[in-house]
């Protein structure tokens, strides 16, 4: 890391001060406002702050924040400080702010919004890009995902010094990554298939079997993977098998952990030392947090799109414990609730189900169609009062999650 030019230093200092004011006055975590101010003073700041660092970009539809957290934890095995936008501020301002706050860190692990990845890759000259998955998400404001994949493909083809670490089980991810000169394929799994039934190369139907997926008409097929998630274990690049035993629940997080280990390994970390650090991560920006509320153990699961809901249902407490579903349709959630119809709710049959949020009537009609019994509720405390002491799992989309979290307390 060279010395920053004067204007860049000034921009970083002023942005950092604005961020602290924002935090102290309780307006937010300060990373966005600080970054916005800094960038206004020095538009080239992201490039300047990235110079000389080993930058890792993490992108995909689901799991960005968690994977960023896990990679940061895994790189701890190298004993180096790591800069990271740990709270999900994943556009240019949030990235700039994260880098400005950790000027001395050799490593930077940055979660990046899918649409911004090409520009951020160019600005940061990232050493590694992690591609997790691509599925339908907030289509009233986001680009169609085939278009996202196409832009990634072009950006990665133009970044010869970048190592791509990509999920071999997601066909659209493979199509985007295949143009990159250097790829490490990870068999990280894919439960959500609804956005990858046809070949990105030729459009024909993709066939799936125990060996993976392949196009029925052209040569496009799943590449063989160096890293494999096998049930609850990881098989690393040299064939060692280790049980993951994470504190974070669910298949999706095991998948995120394998991606994180592949990144740590690329930078020379010992998997045996990195893995215990992943196991210590038990909550990520309030997600998966278990809080006690009037004798109920409330667990908060953030799920923003159909693939995310599918993964959330995978981690529900076993048995027939109650579930609260909450859906809003503010701008950050997407104004369109059509996606609720892409989720299969039949796994909830037999559990007490409560629906809340601005768009609880959309949920009501949806659950009725799947013959899942449910009750309308006003908010989290209304549900807490109506369930017996014990587990209560809460699945909520973005702003609904924030509202619930504000009520039950910002447990770290």
């Amino acid at each position, binding site marked *: 890391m060279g010395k920053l030019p004067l204007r860049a230093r000034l921009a970083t200092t002023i942005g950092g001060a604005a961020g602290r004011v924002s935090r102290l006055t309780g307006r937010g975590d300060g990373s966005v406002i600080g970054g916005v101010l800094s960038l206004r003073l020095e538009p080239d700041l992201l490039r300047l702050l990235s110079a000389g660092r080993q930058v890792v970009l993490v992108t995909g539809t689901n799991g960005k924040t968690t994977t960023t957290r896990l990679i940061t934890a895994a790189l701890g095995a190298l004993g180096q400080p790591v800069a990271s936008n740990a709270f999900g501020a994943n556009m240019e301002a949030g990235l700039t702010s994260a880098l400005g706050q950790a000027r001395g860190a050799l490593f930077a692990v940055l979660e990046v919004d899918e649409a911004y990845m090409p520009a951020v890759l160019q600005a940061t000259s990232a050493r590694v890009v992690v591609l997790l998955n691509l599925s*339908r998400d907030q*289509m*009233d*404001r986001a680009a*169609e*995902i*085939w*278009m996202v994949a196409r832009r990634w493909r072009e950006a990665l083809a133009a970044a010869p010094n970048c190592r791509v670490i990509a999920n071999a089980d997601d066909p659209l991810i493979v199509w985007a990554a295949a143009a990159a000169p250097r790829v490490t394929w990870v068999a990280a799994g894919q439960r959500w298939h*609804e956005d990858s*039934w*046809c070949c990105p190369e030729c*459009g*024909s*139907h993709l066939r799936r079997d125990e060996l993976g997926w392949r196009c*029925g*008409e052209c040569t496009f097929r799943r590449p063989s993977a160096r890293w494999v998630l096998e049930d609850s274990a990881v098989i690393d690049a040299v064939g060692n098998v280790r049980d993951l035993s994470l504190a974070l629940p669910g298949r999706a997080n095991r998948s995120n952990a394998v991606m994180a280990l592949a990144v740590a390994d690329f930078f020379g970390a010992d998997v045996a030392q990195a893995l215990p650090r992943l196991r210590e991560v038990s909550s990520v920006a309030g997600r998966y947090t278990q809080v006690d509320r009037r004798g109920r153990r409330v667990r908060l699961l953030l799920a923003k799109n159909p693939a995310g809901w599918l993964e959330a249902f995978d981690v529900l407490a076993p048995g027939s414990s109650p579930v609260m579903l909450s859906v809003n349709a503010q701008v950050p959630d997407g*104004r*369109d*609730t*059509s*996606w*609720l*119809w*892409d989720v299969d709710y039949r796994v909830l049959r037999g559990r007490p189900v409560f629906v809340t949020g601005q768009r609880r*009537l*959309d949920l*009501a*009609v*949806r659950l*009725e*169609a*799947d013959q899942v019994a449910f009750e309308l509720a006003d908010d989290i405390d209304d549900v807490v009062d109506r369930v017996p002491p014990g587990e209560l799992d809460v699945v909520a989309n973005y702003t609904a999650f924030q509202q619930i979290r504000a009520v039950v307390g910002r447990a770290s």
Partner: protein
Amino acid sequence: MAVRPGAGRAGAGRRGPGSLRLVWVYPDLLSTYGDRGNLLVLKRRARLRGIEVESVEVNADEPVPRQGDIYLLGGGEDLPQILAARRLRDDGGLAAVANRGGVIFAVCAGYQLIGSEFGGAEGEPVAGLGIIDISSGRGDRRGVGEIIADVDPALGVPRLTGFENHQGVTRLGPGARPLAKVTVGVGNGDGTEGAYAGRVLGSYLHGPALARNPGLADLLLSWAAGPLPPLDGADEEWARQLREERLAAVTG
């Protein structure tokens, strides 16, 4: 005349009286955002009337079955839409269904592709199936948001409420009638929304359009199965509340 539960129109008799076969065309290419909803709503409302329902999902590498009663087409991105149009033209099944008076309900990208042409990824004209007299092109900007439209009184369906997300502009030829008049939103781009001709009906209300518009679902079912008995109020209650809430939220 009210039809007894279990009675159906003669055409459905091959599978026993009062049964319907729903065909979801190319969910692998044309299912962008909640399109399964239309299938689920039709199934539910048919079954509540004692009509047996069988549904088939046909992928793009399979032939479209000719003997279905109601065919559904959903939304899709530009490239899948173009591929779907090409494969459906080669297959010919959907055109045959339209010719024999089968019911076809197409939304969004599916709506555009049953017309004579539509705009491709760069706006270039792409040939559609030509089974309804409409033609679409690419507009200047995307229409994204809630839409409300009043249905042609000849169809006896309450006003439509839904969500649209498209950049298409659709012109109707003399062989098709507008499905509705737009109150809020974009629709076809000329103040009308959707189109119908015979038993082929298309709309820009995307995804699960029928979830908020059970009256439209019943119209399609009645085209295939004959007049339907009304449903018990309790079976309509959530959909009624959802419609009310959405219409109030959008009209203010």
